[in-house]
């Protein structure tokens, strides 16, 4: 890497392409650099908007500059990547740094947190009150009461709850978790979710609260589910759902599909696209919205890696000839 005062002077004196640009284009580049600096604020937007509106040529120049920026992607660097990696190997993208800067991000988002976040783009108040929370695409393992293992899937909120004296437990406020409880004497570990309770000794079960209903799948051992006055016992590979219409009936399922998320996999077998998208939205920031209801009813089969969920959009585009409209903020319209 060339660095040091000699080089600064050299490059500065020998080559100043910027001076050959028109004034408007120079200003457009100033705005572009400001908005990609990671340090621009709302005041810059207001000022930039005024600049854009002052003269149609300003707007055109800014559009040209943003287009150039977008075209200067990895392809443009093909064969010309900076020689030595001058930067630390794995770097978080700017988006990730800004979005993930834990304390700062929470402080900033608190200002517009509302009880019912529009499009579910932000966590609701009850989710913020959780003891443990996973972000979009995150998975996390926690140990509760010394010996119960809880693996949390994406967008999951859990609070610690003591149901009775010495009986430890958690509340699944939202999301999905795989719970492995210890065997032996003592009170069973209880998972509460939407007023229902699931417990088991030496058992392993998957529990999911999607905001409308709770679905419990027994993986190993025996699991006891109670909702209101109704109760049910599940053996391995049995699944039950409860919600507004009460406690359902146990049914056999493929446990491997239910717990595929543990291996970072999403498996769909002839599922309506609508349901597939609902599932995918849990793993990606922003939101995919199916605008066309006929499209939403089409059946879809595929396996995806969780970190590669956006590949679904390409598939849908190819298979069904759908139109994909990408909006800023990760919002995607399928029509």
């Amino acid at each position, binding site marked *: *890497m*060339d*660095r040091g005062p000699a080089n600064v002077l050299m*490059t500065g004196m020998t*080559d100043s392409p*910027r001076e*050959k*640009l028109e004034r408007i*284009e120079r200003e457009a*580049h100033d705005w*572009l*650099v400001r*908005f*990609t600096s*990671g*340090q*621009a*604020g*709302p005041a810059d*937007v207001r000022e*930039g*908007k005024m600049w*854009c509106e002052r003269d149609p040529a300003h*707007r055109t*120049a800014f*559009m*040209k*500059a*943003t*287009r*150039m*920026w977008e075209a*200067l992607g*990895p*392809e*443009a*660097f093909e064969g*010309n990547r*900076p*020689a030595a990696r*001058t*930067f630390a190997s794995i*770097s978080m*993208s*700017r*988006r990730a*740094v*800004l979005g993930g800067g834990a304390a700062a991000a929470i402080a*900033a988002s608190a*200002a*517009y947190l509302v009880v019912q976040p*529009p*499009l579910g783009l932000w966590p609701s108040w009850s989710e913020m009150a959780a003891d443990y929370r996973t972000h979009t695409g995150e998975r996390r393992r926690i140990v509760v009461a010394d010996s119960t293992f809880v693996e949390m899937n994406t967008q999951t909120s859990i609070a610690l709850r003591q149901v009775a004296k010495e009986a430890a437990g958690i509340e699944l406020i939202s999301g999905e978790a795989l719970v492995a409880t210890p065997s032996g004497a003592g009170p069973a570990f209880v998972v509460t979710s939407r007023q229902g309770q699931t417990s088991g000794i030496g058992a392993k079960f998957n529990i999911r609260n999607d905001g409308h209903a709770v679905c419990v799948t027994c993986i190993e051992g025996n699991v006891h589910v109670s909702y209101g006055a109704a109760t049910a016992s599940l053996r391995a590979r049995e699944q039950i759902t409860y919600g507004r219409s009460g406690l359902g009936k146990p049914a056999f399922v493929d446990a491997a599909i239910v717990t595929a998320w543990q291996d970072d996999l999403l498996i769909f077998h002839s599922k309506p696209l609508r349901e597939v998208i609902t599932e995918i939205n849990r793993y990606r920031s922003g939101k995919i919205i199916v*605008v066309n209801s006929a499209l939403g009813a089409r059946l879809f089969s595929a396996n995806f890696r969780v970190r590669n969920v956006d590949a679904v959009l390409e598939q849908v585009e190819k298979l069904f000839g759908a139109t994909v*409209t990408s*909006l*800023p*903020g990760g919002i995607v*319209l399928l*029509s």
Partner: protein
Amino acid sequence: MELCRGADLPPVQRPRSYLLRMAKNIALRKLHSEKYTVSLDDAKIAFDIADEAPGPQRSLEAKIELEAFQQAIRELTPRRRAILHAARVEGKTLHAIAVQLEISQRLVEIELKHALAHCALRLDRQLVQRFGPQPVQQSHGQGAGKRIDDRDDR
């Protein structure tokens, strides 16, 4: 004003444009929070610049663009190339680049702007070579973006 008088509102006629506006409003609301860091995407929404759908008429232009930029990047000084790569491809902040290269943020900014200027000049030259001097700047600017139409269901 029309909306206030109507007793019963008609159902949403164009769900797609309705959603577009809704998404835009959500993004704009974020901009009102002073602590929020603004990205280029946010600025594009605020300035009403929508992404282009890649159409066949764009593919030739895109190919010429890519050739021009590849050449431009080859011609950059190593430092300008590294800074442009870090800012654009790796998505690093100017501050992070400055720390990493042990130079001032001001210098990073100047070098980045020179790199961008060089790419812009190289593209203009390439387009002039292909299409002649006049129509290029025009077609380039006017076809460059579409406005999100707010008025289509008023």
